């Protein structure tokens, strides 16, 4: 029964919840789009200062409209008030930052707390005004979709569509502003005005979202989707798409669930859905997620370890034999252990790995011997290493005694193409390459 209604709500088949779900999903998508730029501008928390700064405006608008004999709760009026004080708050943050030694966080904190305090004081006053019911003003703090009417949704949807179109129109300009404001300014772009436009777009989204989500949680809509999306991609266009989708999905889920269960506030459900997506993205995100990054690290470590083992073996062979050609003879574990610094347990692990890859065989005597493929691989690795060392000495003015460490770090990343380049550059492709320092 319940599940059936849930399905209908989610699929927008429920007539009376359809408009709520659509507008909140649209809100999430738009916030995800604009929030991306807020994140890239490193101003995420400015949204928080902004949303708190709207409260005095709501109170004042209510009082003024009541005083003029209008309905104090007309949404366009309240939102106009919210927009005005919200923008004043943001401009104050910018002004404090420009003209004092105080940093971002303090500037935002001051505006946030003082405006919020003022807002609470004003609301407290106006709620005692006789004759006007002010019930429902609280929904601007905690968010509630229950008290919203048809015209409210129309206002929200129109504002959001206008905001999205504007953002998409100035995508290029916003990107430049966020990436390199100094360059933008020298190039003749009005960076201050662009910043104000960006804040204006953020304000528009915040203000229309206040009633549904509440002013404390609305910033989650601006921050969480883009931060989650960043884990999946390094490409700005994809980031904007993913962020928009995450915002829309969170909004859709949140609005649907809270439409069914009246004691689950929409704002809270939306935030929790978005945070859940964030958590999944942070762990599994393809581009910057924790797990993929860790796996890449492990893979590189494995590769580096293998190269260290094979090169060491090869160098020992070179050291123990005086005449060419080099013979692949068994060597003792002890020699290998002494040849370079191994961390605890590293050597046996690497040997096990190399045996599994058929690069090294254990002799009946307990000594180790390179297999045929292992010998080829070891000589190739050693050669690359030395090529790189010589490149560094020749081109980077590094003292030979310092070369080994740097070479270790970089050679593992060398592709075949660069090796060819190095060989050509050093004109050494044909002859054997000796180590430039004592092994």
């Amino acid at each position, binding site marked *: 029964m319940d599940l059936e209604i849930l399905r209908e709500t989610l699929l927008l088949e429920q007539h009376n919840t359809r408009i709520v779900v659509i507008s909140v999903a649209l809100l999430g998508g738009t916030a995800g789009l604009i929030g991306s730029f807020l994140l*890239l501008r*490193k101003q995420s928390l400015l949204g928080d200062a902004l949303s708190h700064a709207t409260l005095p405006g709501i109170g004042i608008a209510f009082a003024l409209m009541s005083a003029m004999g209008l309905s104090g709760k007309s949404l366009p009026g309240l939102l106009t008030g919210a927009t005005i004080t919200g923008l004043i708050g943001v401009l104050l943050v910018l002004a404090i930052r420009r003209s004092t*030694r105080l940093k971002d966080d303090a500037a935002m904190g001051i505006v946030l707390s003082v405006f919020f305090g003022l807002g609470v004081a004003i609301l407290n006053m106006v709620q005692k005004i006789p004759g006007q019911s002010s019930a429902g003003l609280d929904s601007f703090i905690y968010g509630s979709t229950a008290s919203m009417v048809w015209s409210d949704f129309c206002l929200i949807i129109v504002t959001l569509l206008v905001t999205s179109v504007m953002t998409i*129109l*100035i*995508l*290029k*300009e916003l*990107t*430049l502003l*966020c*990436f*390199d404001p*100094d*360059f933008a*300014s*020298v*190039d*003749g*772009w009005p960076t201050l005005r662009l910043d104000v436009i960006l804040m204006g777009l953020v304000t528009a989204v915040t203000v229309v979202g206040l009633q549904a989500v509440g002013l404390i949680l609305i910033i989650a809509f601006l921050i969480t989707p883009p931060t989650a999306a*960043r884990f999946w*991609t*390094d*490409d*700005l266009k994809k*980031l904007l798409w993913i962020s928009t989708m995450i915002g829309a999905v969170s909004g859709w889920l949140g609005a649907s669930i809270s439409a069914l269960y009246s004691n689950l506030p929409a704002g809270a459900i939306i935030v929790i859905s978005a945070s859940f997506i964030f958590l999944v993205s942070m762990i599994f995100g393809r581009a910057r997620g924790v797990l993929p990054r860790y796996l890449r690290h492990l893979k590189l470590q494995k590769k580096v370890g293998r190269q260290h083992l094979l090169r060491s073996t090869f160098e020992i062979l070179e050291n123990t034999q005086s005449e060419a050609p080099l013979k692949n003879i068994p060597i003792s574990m002890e020699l290998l252990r002494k040849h370079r610094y191994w961390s605890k347990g590293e050597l046996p692990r690497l040997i096990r790995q190399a045996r599994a890859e058929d690069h090294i065989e254990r002799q009946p005597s307990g000594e180790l011997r390179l297999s045929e493929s292992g010998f080829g691989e070891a000589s190739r690795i050693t050669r690359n290493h030395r090529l790189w060392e010589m490149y560094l000495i020749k*081109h*980077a*003015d590094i003292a030979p005694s310092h070369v080994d460490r740097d070479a270790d770090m970089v050679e593992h990343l060398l592709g075949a193409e660069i090796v060819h380049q190095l060989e050509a550059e050093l004109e050494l492709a044909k002859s054997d390459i000796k180590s430039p320092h004592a092994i």
Partner: protein
Amino acid sequence: MRPEHPPEFPLAVHDLTVAYHRKPVLWDVDLNIPDGSLAGIVGPNGAGKSTLLKACLDLIPATSGEALIYGKPYAEQRDLIAYVPQRESVDWDFPVSAQDVVAMGTYRKLGWFKRIGTTQKKQALAALEQVGIGHLANRQISQLSGGQQQRVFLARALVQDAQIYFMDEPFAAVDAATEQAIIELLQSLNARGKTVLCVHHDLATVSRYFDHLVLLNMRVVASGPTPETFTRENLQKTYGGKLNLLDDVAQALKNVGRP
């Protein structure tokens, strides 16, 4: 027009003073950069080198004085200017590719609302090839080395196709190969009649790289052709009592055969 700053100078700075929170950083800076020169601004840390560059480009408000580009205020001459900020001034984790960054150099000509198209992409790619990293065009910028990132910035300036290039520490923390590539590029720009102005910190290379030199420590200690300006006396004035450094420099001076 001020008689001491005639309009043939690509950059003329007149009595420029800059202060942060009422603490002066530049004091009465007055200088001319001759047309077609490859000029260096050199001085100790905190001498206000970058500040001078930024004040000339209106990035920092001047307390008094002015900077003129070919005799006119900077705002009227933007088309003539390309700017290469310090590499650390931007976040290299930003989700864009090398080509995207270079294409930003075309935005001004594109104007508002228009998106970059094939022409701009081709321009960007050509500039990347000119600085030797055409094959990295689609690489995300955080996956580039420091030297490659510097080259991306340089390519962006090339795309701007300017008369005067303002560069903030283009040689800071780059590898030797990149440094060589950059200086060759600057010299080729110079050979085509462009003026290049670099904030620079390495005294050992000054006389090899620049034909005009500004020694700066809050005020201009000396400004003129490098051979006359890059003297022990001037350096001592600029760097004050930092003798260790001066000895290194003396060595460097000997190596290039100047007093």
